[in-house]
Every structure is written in C-alpha cells, then in structure tokens.
C-alpha cells in the first residue's frame, strides 16, 4: 500500500505546484508581453501585480456560471473538462529530476516512469483534440464550430511532423522512457559540449528540435498558430460560448499543454536536468549565485525603494532568495535540487520563447498554416528522420 | 458469490471481447446512421484485437500484437476510404440513412 500513499502525496504536490505555476506563467506572460510592447503590465494587485493571478482566479470562480440555451449541454460541459483533464494527465510521465532521498526511502521525481512515456504523451496530445473539437461543436455556433474544426484539423496535421521530430532523438538515444532518454544525454564532448540531443552525435537534432518547437506551437494553439481562437475572424473561436470557470478551464488547458510540451522539449532535446557545463567548472554553484545576486538586488532596492510598498516587500523577497541560495549549498539536499533547478530553468527558457514569439510574430492565414504543415514541416521531418536513421545505422 | 481470484482469469478477456463484438453486431444491425454503423464495425475490430492481445498474452509471444497492429492500420485505411465514401454519398443524396442507400438491389 506504500506505493499508493507515496503516489498520492506526489501527485497532490505536483498538482498544487503545477496549478500555481500555470497561474503564474500567465502573470509572467502578461508582464513579458507588456515589456515587449513597452508597457508595464499588471502592478496593481500585490507588489508588481504578483497577486494578479489570485485575483483572476477569484474573479473567474465567482462570476455567474451561465450556460447558453442553444448549446448541447452535456458536451458543452464535457468539453472543457476533457481539455483540462488530458492536459493535466500528461504531466504524470514527466520526470522533473533524478530522485528524492528521505532517509532510506527514495522515490523518483516523477509520478510514474512509464517505459513508453513518449508514446503516452503523443497519445494524450492526440486525444487532446476532443476537448477543443467538442467545445466548438457543442457550442452550436458557427464561429465556435469553425474554430473547432480548424483546431482539430490543425492538431491532426501537426501531429505528424511532431511525431517524426520526436522519433529522431529516440533513434539516437534508443529508448522511450523519459528517464533513460535523459540519462542518455548525460556527459560532455571534449569536456564542455553537453551531449544533449541537439548536440548529440552522430547527427545533432537541431532541425528536429526546431520542427518540434513549431509543431508544439501549433499543437497548443499558440501564436502564430492560434487560428482556432483568432479573435478578429472568429470572435474567440471554439470557446466563444464559454465563460467564467469553463473558460478558465480551456485557459488552464492551454497553459498546461504549454508546460508539458516545453517539458518534453527539454527532456528530449535539451538534456533534461543535465547541467549546461560540467560540475568541475562549478555548474553546481550557478543556482546559489543567481539566487544570491537576485536576493542582494532585492535587499538593495528595499534599502532605497521606488515606491512606499517596496520597503516591506522587497526585503522579504531578498531574504527568501538568500535562504534558497543557502539551501542549494546544503550537501545533503543539493544533489536533489540541482537537477530540479536545471530542469525548471530550461523549461522556463522554453516557456519564455513561447511568450517571446507571441509578442513578436503575427498570425498565419489558415491555408498557409496547413500547406506549411504538409509541404514544409512534414517532408523536412521525414528527411531528418531518414538521415538520423542512416547515421545511427552507420555507427 | 465466488471469491475474487488473485489474477484475471484468461477467459474473462475473451468473454469481454465477445460481449463487445456482439454489441458491435447489434449496433451494426439496429442503427441506421451510416457513420454509426461504421463505428460499430470499428467496435467489432477492437473486440477482435482484444482477443488477439489476450491470446498473445496467454502464449507469451508478441505476434498477436503485431496482428492487431495490422488490424489498426487497415482500420485506419478503411476509415479514410469509408468516410470519403460517406461524404460522397451525402454529397449526392443528402442523407446518412443507410436504408435510403439501397439502390444496390436494382
């Protein structure tokens, strides 16, 4: 029964962290977008708008939960549920780090190490279509229907290049379990080039990484592929008819998918929790360094605040950061936290790319989108796959 | 009420597959919507797949998996063509009622 308890604890933990993270990713997105567009972004609620997500959640929860009269109720309600469920399930096979040791009890930093984890993710992303498609159909609304159709078409189309792109590093690392994949990317060439699959011999997977990223954008209906919810043509696409928490569900689903995809990208291409450079060059002290500096900066700004409130908030952050920096120095905990740190920072980078691109690129036209998928990505992915297979075979 | 066995008796899988298959037949026979009929066929295929997998579990060799994999692939091809046909039927007759597409007899 031990197994069940541990799993429960872990999943509760992961769920909590993940949901919070989702909320805050959105905050980060708003901030970053704002700065890209030379705005300031949310800053009313809490210091630097840090409590904005909380406020949003409360707002969404407390809004009137109205169901349009013309919809197919069952599916209308089922759709967001499906969407968010599939989005959240897929996190179950994602490993965040090596493993946790508490006394003599060890457990991997992962809900379950499925040895076909990659396939599992693929399958779920395939099923994920249903949420959107159903939503579009059940809303009984032209815009929504078009949005739903678009998204299902788009998702199916981009499944293929994505799968192809994923297959290539699998060939290199010869496994389907994320943990083994990451272990396969350990080590360095010439002592300093990490053996991540984007650098991995015999055939670096840069191309497939790019393909994967693009396909991932399409899979998650993000700019520049957010046709299903293109405001200026489809009102709000498949979730036109959705409000309050049901809308929030789609929102969460989208961000959860983002997170999942970024995690997969990191695990498959960016070497998971493998450090960027070897430990003997002091990669282990990077987190301490960053946290320490940021803590000091916070303290400094706390000394001479720009706004009255900062006098109280910033020192608190500073202390917290310094404390964390200290935590990373404890030899007993460091080996657990370091991989976590690397993993999360890489995921953060990928997420940042998401936001960055959203801030930068305009939206595709629908036919362009499809033809791009079938005439550029797909052949490219296949060619890449063939070359990889050839290289692997030749080795 | 017999005690619940430690492991799933092998025959249960087959019986489950039989039940599913029969339901598929029922769907095929009692439904009039072409698409639903088609889906009933898919259901039958799934049932058969289940027994394949079960047998290859029983005999501890993966050939059954291979076969059901082929079944899936063929089902995919079948779905592509079949749905295309359904589309064409609908385009020409504006109906999905399987009984209204009975020109085969004359």
């Amino acid at each position: 029964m031990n197994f069940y308890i541990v799993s429960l604890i872990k999943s509760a933990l992961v769920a909590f962290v993940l949901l919070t993270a989702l909320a805050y990713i959105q905050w980060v997105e708003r901030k970053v977008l704002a700065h890209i567009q030379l705005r300031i972004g949310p800053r009313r609620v809490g210091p630097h708008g840090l409590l904005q997500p909380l406020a949003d959640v409360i707002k969404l929860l407390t809004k009137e939960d109205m169901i349009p009269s013309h919809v197919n109720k069952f599916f209308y309600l089922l759709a967001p549920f499906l969407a968010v469920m599939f989005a959240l399930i897929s996190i179950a096979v994602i490993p965040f780090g090596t493993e946790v040791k508490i006394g003599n009890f060890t457990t991997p930093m992962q809900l379950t190490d499925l040895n076909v984890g990659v396939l599992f993710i693929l399958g779920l992303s395939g099923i994920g279509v249903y949420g959107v498609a159903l939503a579009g159909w059940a809303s009984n609304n032209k815009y929504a229907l078009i949005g739903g159709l678009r998204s299902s078409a788009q998702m199916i189309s981009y499944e293929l290049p994505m799968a192809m792109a994923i297959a290539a590093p699998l060939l290199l690392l010869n496994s389907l379990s994320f943990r083994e994949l990451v272990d396969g990317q350990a080590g360095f060439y010439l002592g300093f080039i990490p053996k991540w699959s984007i650098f991995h011999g015999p055939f670096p997977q840069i191309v497939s990484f790019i393909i994967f990223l693009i396909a991932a954008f399409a899979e998650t209906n993000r700019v520049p592929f957010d046709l299903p919810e293109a405001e200026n043509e489809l009102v709000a696409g498949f979730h036109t008819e959705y409000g309050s928490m049901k809308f929030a569900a789609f929102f969460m689903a989208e961000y959860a998918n983002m997170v999942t995809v970024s995690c997969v990208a990191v695990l498959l291409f960016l070497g998971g929790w493998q450090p960027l450079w070897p430990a003997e060059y002091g990669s282990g002290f990077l987190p301490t360094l960053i946290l320490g500096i940021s803590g000091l900066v916070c303290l400094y700004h706390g000394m001479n605040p720009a706004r009255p409130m900062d006098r109280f908030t910033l020192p608190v952050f500073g202390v917290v950061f310094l404390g964390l920096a200290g935590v990373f120095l404890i030899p007993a905990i460091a080996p657990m936290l370091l991989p976590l740190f690397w993993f999360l920072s890489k995921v953060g980078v990928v997420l940042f790319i998401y936001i960055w691109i959203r801030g930068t690129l305009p939206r595709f036209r629908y036919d362009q989108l499809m033809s791009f998928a079938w005439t550029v990505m797909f052949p490219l992915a296949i060619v890449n796959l063939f070359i990889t297979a050839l290289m692997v075979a030749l080795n | 009420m017999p005690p619940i066995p430690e492991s799933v008796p092998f025959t249960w899988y087959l019986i489950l597959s039989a039940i599913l298959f029969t339901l598929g037949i029922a769907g095929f026979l009692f439904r009039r919507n072409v698409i639903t009929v088609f889906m009933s066929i898919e259901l039958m295929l799934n049932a058969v797949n289940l027994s394949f997998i079960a047998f290859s579990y029983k005999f501890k060799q993966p050939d059954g998996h291979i076969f059901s994999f082929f079944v899936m692939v063929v089902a995919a091809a079948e779905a592509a063509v079949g749905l295309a046909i359904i589309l064409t039927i609908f385009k020409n007759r504006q109906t999905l009622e399987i009984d209204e597409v009975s020109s085969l007899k004359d």
Partner: protein
Amino acid sequence: MEHVILFLIFAVIAVVAAINLVLQSHPISSALSLVGVMGALALIYLQLGGEFIASAQLIVYAGAIMVLFIFVIMLLNAGTERKMKRNLWVKYGGLPLMALFIGVVAYVIERMLPPSPGGLFGNMTHGNPQEIGRLLFQQYLLPFEVTSILILIAILGAVVLARKEIE
C-alpha cells in the same frame, strides 16, 4: 486482487460505453463512447503487457481515426436518427437473442479453454516496442510493406473520392 478489480473497472467502462454506442441516437455521442471503449481497452492492453499496442490504440484509433469520424460528423452536421418503429421480433427478440449469443459464446470459451495463469500487470514483457519493432521489421517485413502500400492506395482513394468535381 487489485488487478482483477482494475480489470473489472475497465471492462465495465468498456461494456457500458459500447452499450451507449449502440443506444445513443446521436452519432457524436456514439463516437465519444467508442473513444471511451478504446481508452478502456488500451488500459486492458497495458494489463496484458501490450505497452506498444496500447499507445498505438490511443494514437491511431482514438487520436486519429475517431477524430476523423468526429470531423466528418461535424462537417456533415449529422443530426439525431429519427426514430422508426422496428418490426416486433427485432424489438422484443433482439435483446434476448444477443444475451443468448453471448451466453453460448461464453459457455463455449469456458468449455474449450483449459484454465491457465491469468492476467497480471507487468507479467508479460513481450509487448514492448523493442520486441514489436524487431518482429515487425524482420519477421513481418513483407506484410508491413504491403500494408504501407495499402495505406498509400487508401489515401489516394480517399482523395479521389472526396475531392470536389472540377467542372
């Protein structure tokens, strides 16, 4: 113990979904219940050690084929079937007949198959992708290639059938 319980859960899901498929009057509902069946079956496959086949079930069947179905249903905007009165013996005889059929099949199966060690999770490890791949590309290479050609033909056929005539 828990294996059996899990199996029963999945089996019940599958059967209920299948019944729903048959009874629901709207194609979309049927389609979704079919997806449900497939999901449950995928889990049962996992129990039977078919990791690869379970994933394939999700990806190919649930992820691609059924999406295609739903896609078509949406495109054609297929409405609910209009009720039509069946002739009596189908109405009243159908269900017992099915029950009888299932009963006979179950009986035959029980009689014909000797009792054997039952299904446990992780008890069979032959279904992993490595094994399947090895078989697929060595022993079953020819069927594999033939199937691929079949798919190619199917694609062409679908395109030809579904394209709109150019006047």
